């Protein structure tokens, strides 16, 4: 074992000195086919076009794109790292890259940023910094971002006598739920046509729920509850990125969660047990809920349903007078084991450039990371008749907070998922999260 390691080291040293001397070895790594993985099928056409354009500009490099669903993506990728078949470049997630960087699976791209004169300030604020690891090295270049908004069924709003302007000025607090709860209650209709705020409302036989439910939200509550809990001044961790202490034991947070779980108890939101199965967006399309809080990556799906007029409102203003939305961003990273380092670097730089991000913007599926391209995407959405200010407003007004980036994210999720399910399903009070929080924080000791 030792001997072979030594041999590898010698070979690596020789390769390094060679490339330092005359760069002849980089010729090999700058040519040929590189592989690229992503998980969102909706974005595949945009990136396929980027790949075609890239090959046109760099004829000796071709890009083979593979799309894999989110459920298999990470385990297949891990197998690839171990088996040596991982893609040269892949779409990376904030919740995952810390662990990958720590295990030396990602190639730092600081040099590439310098060589290509990439202007990091051209990206929407904070997006580029998210990809600087604990060791101070940069492991990805931002490609897109997302925030949370309220998708609503226009016909149901009209029937309930709620104006779209009202939707833009919703307020919320954990005590009585503010105007947000009032609207949700009024939009809820039971089987005999009684609304949620009328006497005689039957909470056990609800036809249309005021608010749809996606799930318990596990550790981040990205689309489920974080747009509410984080308006109270609460945040997931002591600092972000690279916090080492989670705050699920905060009374402010637990009060918010008790209010949230209470919606199901009042009959305004489906019970958690009924949401296992059909996706929340599909039940919205089937007319089972009037408002769905969901991410900007779902715009295409919600506005694409036939026969339903969908509007998008910003998330409600919280007790501190501000809205809040989780701000999540993806990036492209290079696998440390790539044999086509130079070609891969070039491709990552291209993906992060205006050339590619404008193409992505024109397809109106997600918001690209570059500020200028984001504006183009908003225009593209507008051209399709979709007003996306509910999502862009968060970024403009700086009411976003970052996806919690820490170590052990998979284990934190493993602990918090059942704990949150128990709370949201009403099986346990939110105070039970204190015990789960202790388990979580024990991971960081």
């Amino acid at each position, binding site marked *: 074992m030792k001997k072979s390691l030594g041999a590898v080291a010698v070979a690596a040293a020789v390769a390094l000195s060679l490339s330092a001397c005359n760069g002849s070895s980089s010729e090999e790594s700058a040519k040929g086919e590189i592989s690229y993985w992503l998980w969102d099928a909706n974005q595949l056409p945009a990136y396929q076009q980027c790949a075609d354009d890239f090959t046109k500009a760099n004829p000796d490099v071709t890009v083979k794109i593979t799309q894999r669903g989110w459920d298999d993506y990470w385990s297949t990728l891990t197998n690839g790292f171990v088996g040596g078949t991982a893609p040269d470049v892949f779409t990376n997630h904030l919740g995952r890259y810390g662990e990958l960087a720590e295990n030396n699976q990602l190639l730092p791209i600081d040099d590439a940023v310098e060589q290509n004169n990439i202007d990091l300030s051209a990206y929407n604020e904070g997006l580029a910094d998210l990809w600087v690891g604990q060791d101070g090295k940069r492991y990805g270049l931002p490609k897109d971002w997302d925030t949370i908004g309220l998708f609503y069924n226009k016909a149901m709003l009209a029937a309930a006598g709620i104006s779209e302007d009202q939707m833009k000025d919703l307020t919320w607090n954990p005590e009585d739920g503010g105007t947000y709860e009032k609207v949700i209650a009024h939009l809820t209709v039971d089987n005999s046509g009684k609304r949620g705020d009328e006497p005689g409302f039957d909470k056990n036989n609800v036809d249309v729920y005021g608010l749809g439910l996606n799930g318990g939200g596990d550790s981040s509550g990205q689309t489920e509850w974080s747009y509410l809990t984080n308006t109270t001044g609460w945040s997931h961790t002591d600092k972000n990125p690279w916090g080492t202490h989670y705050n699920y034991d905060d009374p402010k947070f637990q009060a918010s969660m008790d209010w949230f779980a209470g919606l199901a108890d009042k009959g305004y939101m489906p019970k958690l047990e009924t949401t296992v199965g*059909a996706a929340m967006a599909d039940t919205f399309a089937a007319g089972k809920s009037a408002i769905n809080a969901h991410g900007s990556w779902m715009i295409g799906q919600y506005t694409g349903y036939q026969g339903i007029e969908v509007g998008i409102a910003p998330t409600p203003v919280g007790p501190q007078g501000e809205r809040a939305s989780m701000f999540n961003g993806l990036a492209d990273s290079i696998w440390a084991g790539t044999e086509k380092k130079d070609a891969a670097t070039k491709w990552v730089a291209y993906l992060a450039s205006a050339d590619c991000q404008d193409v992505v913007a024109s397809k109106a599926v997600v918001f690209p990371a570059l500020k200028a391209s984001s504006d183009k995407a908003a225009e593209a959405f507008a051209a399709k008749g979709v007003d996306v200010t509910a999502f862009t407003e968060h970024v403009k007004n700086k009411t976003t907070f970052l996806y919690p980036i820490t170590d052990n994210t998979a284990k934190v999720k493993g602990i918090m998922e059942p704990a949150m399910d128990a709370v949201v399903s009403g099986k346990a009070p939110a105070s039970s999260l204190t015990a789960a929080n202790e388990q979580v924080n024990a991971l960081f000791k």
Partner: protein
Amino acid sequence: MTTLAKHSRSATPASPSSKPRGGFRQSGDLRIALFFIAPALIGFVFFYLVPTVRGIYLSFTEYNILGDPEWVGMENYQAIAKDPLFWNSLAVTGQYVFLNIVLQTALALGLALLMHQVAKSTIIRGALLLPYLMSNVIAALLWFWMLDYQIGVVNQFIDWAGLPRVAFFGSEEWAIPTQALINTWRHMGYTALLIFAGLQAIPGHVYEVAKLDGASAWQTFRKITTPLLRPVLVLVLVVTVIGSFQVFDTVAVTTGGGPVNATRVIQYYIYQRAFTESDFGYGSAIAVILFLILALVAFIQMKFLKGNESDLD
């Protein structure tokens, strides 16, 4: 390898007396024997023996697959003993196995008797196997949609009947029974076929004698069919119990361990710890424990149900 060589040598002494060129025969036999054994042996070594030994080794390490395994002794096992999710997974798996085996065996036995005495048509017999021809994942997803709370066809019928809708996969009470029923539906045809083969092996004259003695149908079943079928039934039980303990795919594609921890069966928990949370040492340790449990269960079944003896002798 050594045991193989020993076997082939100890088996030969009978032949040299009749065959003068015994020396040649001997090595020729060994070579041919090895040739025929090789495929199974290679498969066994590479896909069973090596992974098992490596799994046992990994269970004493901390290993996140991307780094190197680090020896931690009994730490994983000590942590497992105190892990409420592990004990929960045992209880949940036990509940699943119980429901699945009782229902599956009873229904399969009934079906086998029907196949044996009533349904002689090959088409009908073949049709019973149809669910088994479907992959587990497809069967699970099919029922996942049909049993959906909001838009599933089964709940639509329940609704029409004036009964409250049932969250088959979403409620903690229903999640395990639902999955046990789905897998019963998928497997009972196959199990019935095994039992049916056992029924056919019972000689007809035994039944004729019983008939002459005026035994009723129930008496014949109790006193003749059941005891003579025992070796087959034991085999079926050993195989289905082991298979049932390993329930994974149905859970993985439907509830993913939820609601809360209601379907976090042991195999899913192993997968979660190892592949989702990159704790391969811990996952391996649970897998070793499962291995021991299954070995014990199989041993008890063989020992107390006397699966390797037949009453026909």
